[in-house]
C-alpha cells in the first residue's frame, strides 16, 4: 500500500489541497496578529475561487485567474475592514454575514453565466526545477510544482521574517495585544488593521482561485467547502508561527487528498469516511494543542481611542 505511486499521489495531493489552506491561513494569521478575527475568510476564498475561474476561463490565462481571485478576495475584505475596523462593528457577526452573502452571490453569478453547466479549464503547467525534478521519487514530489506553490513557500518565509525581524512585525503584535499602547506611541491602529485585513483578503482570494483554477479546473458553487474555517483554526493554533501554518496546511491537505491516493492504489474505503478526515483532524488537533493556543489579548475587539 505504501508504494511509490501512493506516496507521490498523496504528497502531491497534500500540496495541492493544502495550498489554499496555507495561503488563507497565512492571511488569517496576519489579521489575527493585528487583532482582527477574520471569520469572513471562507467568503473571501469563495469569491476568489469564482472570480479566478471566470477570469481564467475568459482569458485562458491561469495567471490572470489568480490575479482576479486575489482582487475579489480583496474586495470582500474591504467590506470587512470598513464594517469591523473602521465602523467597529462586531467582527463575528459581520464575518458570518460576509460568508453567507458571498455564497449566495457567487452561486447566483455562476448560474447567470453558465446555467447548470460546469465548464472545465485546462490543467496548469507545473514549474519543475531543472535537473532536480528528475530524481526518482523525490524529484516529482519536491521539485515539480505550480508557481503558486513556490509563492506560498516564499510567503511563509517572508511572514516569519516580518514577524520576527521588522518594526512592522512588532507593531502588528502590539495592535493585537495592546492596541492602546501602539496608539499612545503614535502608531495608527486602524490603518494597520485595515491593511492586514485587505492583505488577508487578497491571500484568501488567491487561495480560492488556486482551488478552482489549479486544483479542480472548475467552479462549483460552495466549493470552498469549509476550507476557510479550517484555515482559521490553523491560524489560531499556529499563533505567530508561519511554519506551523505550513505544517498544518500540509497535514490537512494530506487528509483531504487521502481519498484520491487510496483510490489510485485500488483500496476502496467509503468516500464519506475519508471526507470526514479533515474535520476529525481539526477536532483532534484542537483537543491536543488547542489548550495552549495563546491568542492575542485584543483579538476580536474593536479599537476606539480612550474607550476602556
Amino acid at each position, binding site marked *: 500500500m505504501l508504494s511509490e505511486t501512493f506516496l507521490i499521489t498523496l504528497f502531491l495531493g497534500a500540496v495541492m489541497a493544502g495550498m489554499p489552506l496555507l495561503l488563507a491561513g497565512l492571511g488569517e494569521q496576519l489579521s489575527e496578529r493585528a487583532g482582527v478575527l477574520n471569520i469572513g475568510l471562507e467568503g473571501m476564498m469563495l469569491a476568489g475561487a469564482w472570480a479566478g475561474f471566470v477570469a481564467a476561463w475568459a482569458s485562458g490565462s491561469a495567471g490572470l485567474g489568480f490575479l482576479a481571485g486575489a482582487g475579489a478576495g480583496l474586495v470582500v475584505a474591504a467590506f470587512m475592514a470598513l464594517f469591523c475596523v473602521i465602523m467597529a462593528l462586531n467582527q463575528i457577526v459581520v464575518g458570518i454575514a460576509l460568508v453567507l452573502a458571498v455564497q449566495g452571490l457567487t452561486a447566483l453569478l455562476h448560474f447567470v453565466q453558465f446555467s447548470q453547466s460546469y465548464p472545465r479549464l485546462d490543467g496548469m503547467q507545473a514549474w519543475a526545477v531543472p535537473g532536480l525534478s528528475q530524481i526518482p521519487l523525490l524529484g516529482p514530489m519536491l521539485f515539480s510544482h505550480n508557481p503558486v506553490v513556490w509563492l506560498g513557500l516564499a510567503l511563509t518565509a517572508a511572514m516569519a521574517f516580518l514577524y520576527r*525581524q*521588522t*518594526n*512592522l512585525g*512588532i*507593531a502588528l*503584535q*502590539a495592535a493585537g*495585544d*495592546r492596541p*492602546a*499602547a*501602539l*496608539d*499612545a*506611541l*503614535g*502608531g495608527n491602529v486602524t490603518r494597520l488593521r485595515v491593511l492586514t485585513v485587505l492583505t488577508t483578503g487578497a491571500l484568501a482570494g488567491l487561495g480560492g482561485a488556486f482551488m478552482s483554477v489549479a486544483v479542480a479546473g472548475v467552479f462549483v458553487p460552495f466549493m470552498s467547502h469549509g476550507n476557510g474555517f479550517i484555515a482559521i483554526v490553523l491560524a489560531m493554533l499556529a499563533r505567530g508561527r508561519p511554519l506551523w501554518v505550513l505544517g498544518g496546511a500540509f497535514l490537512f491537505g494530506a487528509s483531504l487528498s487521502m481519498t484520491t491516493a487510496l483510490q489510485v492504489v485500488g483500496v476502496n474505503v467509503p468516500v464519506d469516511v475519508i471526507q470526514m478526515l479533515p474535520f476529525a483532524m481539526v477536532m483532534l488537533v484542537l483537543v491536543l494543542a488547542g489548550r495552549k493556543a495563546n491568542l*492575542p*489579548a485584543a483579538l476580536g475587539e474593536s479599537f476606539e*481611542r*480612550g474607550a476602556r
Partner: protein
Amino acid sequence: MQTPPGAALPPADDRAGYGRAGSGVTGAGIRPVVALQNVTRRFPGVLASDAVSLGFLPGEVHVLLGENGAGKSTLVAMLSGLQQPDAGQILIDGAAVSLAAPRDALRLGIGTVFQHSMLVPSLSVVDNFTLGGPWWQRPDRKALAARIQAAAAGPGLRVDPFASVASLSLGERQQAEILRALMRGSRCLILDEATAMLTPQEAGALGALMRRLAATGLAVVFITHKLQEALAFGDRITVLRGGRNVGMIAPDVLQARSGAENTAHIVSLMFGEDSRRPDPLSHDLPRPAPPQKGPALLKVAGLSTAGGPQPLRDISFTLHAGEIFGIAGIDGNGQKALAEALAGQIPSTGTLHLGGAEINGGVAARRRAGLSYVTDDRLGEGIVAGFPVATNLVLKEIGQPPFWRRGLVQSATIAAAARALVQAFDIRTPDVTTPAGRLSGGNIQKVLLARELTGQAQVVIFAKPTYGLDLQNITAIRARIREAAGHGKAVLLISTDLDELLELSDRIAVIERGRLSPPYPNDDTARAAITRLISGATGGADV
C-alpha cells in the same frame, strides 16, 4: 529674552499661583514647559474640567492632587492627546498647540506613563522600545539594548532590555515606561496615579526617582489622590476638586511650613471651605433640625467584615428616624464596605436591628424590611444601561405584583408607575422607554433615588450621592436627601465631600481604616473638628 511667566499664562489668578510670580524658588523668568490655560472639558451632565489653568515648570515635581472624580484623569487625557479640550488652550513653551492625537503630544515632548501599563506584555522590553518606529526598518536590538542600558544608568533605573514584559513586576514595568518616555525626548513627564499599584517600597523608590529626574531639568507631573505621597514627593502641589483648580501650594510655602500645617491646608482645599461654589438651596433652607428627633430606627452593633481592600472593624452606631447621619473620610477607608455590608451585598458579622427586629439575610430580605441603598457605582450596579428607564425603576421588584402577575409582565402598569416617578423626581428623559444608559449622570442618579426612595424604605444609605455631577443636579439630589429625612426616613450619608456633609447632616462621624469615630454633632465647630479628624487619619503630619 526671558519671558515673564505672566506672558504665557492666564491673567494672574492667585489660586493658580502665578500671581505670586517672582516669589519663591520658581522665580521670575522660568517659563513652564507645558501650561494649561482655562482648559474646559464637558461630558454629558458633568463638567470634568472647569477652566483649569496650570503650568509645569522644569526642574519641579508638580503634584496634581484630588479625590476620584476631581478631574485628574481628564487633564491627563488632554495632555497626552487622548481627548481634546472643549475650550481653553494647551501651551508648550508659551505657544498654543493642538494635541489631536497621542503622537502630537509625544512629538512635542510630553511623555505620559499611564496608570495602566502601556507596554505590550507579549513583547520583550527592547521591542517595546522600538514600537512606533518606522515600519520598514529592522530593529537593531543589540544597539538599542546598549542604548537602553546607557540611558538607564543616568537616573539610576534598572531595566533588563531582553526580558519579556510579561515577566516584569509592575514596578519594573513602570521603570521601563519612564525610561522609554525619557528616551523619546520628553521634557514633561506625566505619571498618572503611578503609585496606585505599587508596594510601599516601590512607591518610595519611585518618589526618589521623580526627584532625581526633576533635578535633571525635567518637568515631572505626578498625579495622585494620596495626600502623604503628595507631601513626600512634591515640590509644588495643585489641588483639584470637582474639575477645578481649587488651590496651589508653591515650593517656598510648602517648605516653610510644618507637615501638619501643609496637611491641614490641603485637607481644607480637598474637602471643604469652598466658598466659591454658589449653592442657592443651602442658603435658603434652615439648618438641619436638631438631632435625635425621632425614635431609634437602625441599630448597628459590632459590624465587621473580612477581606476586600479595606475590612470594617467593629462599627457601631444608631440611626434615628428623620435624621441624616453623615460619614466623612478620605476615600478608600472602608466606605464601600460599610454601605455594602449594611445593604447585604457582602458578608459581615455583627448585628443589625431595624425598628426593633433583627435583620439579616440578603439584599432582597433587607430591602423588604425597609432598608435601601443608593450605590455610588451608578452605571455598574445601579442600573442596567440597556434596559428602559421604566424597567430600571422597578428593577428590584422583578417578579412581584403589581408589576408582574402570574409570571407575566404588566407593561402598562410599569409604564404608568414609571411616568409618575419621572414626573415626581424630575427625571429628564425623552421617554420611559429610553435606555437608562443614555441619560446623563445626574438623571441616572435621579432614577436610582426614585427607585430607592419609593415603597417601604425606612432607612436609606447614600454612597457619594453627588459624586461627579454638575451643580444643578447636585442641588436637586441634596434637596431629595433632605426631603427623605423630612418624611421621617433615617438617612446614612456616606460622602467624601465635607461641604456636603456639613450642609446636610445632623451628626457626622469619620471613617478611618475601617473604624468609625464617635459621632460629632454638626454645629459651628464641626468643620474644624472633622477636618482635624480626617487629617489626623492621613498620617501626613509625620511627613
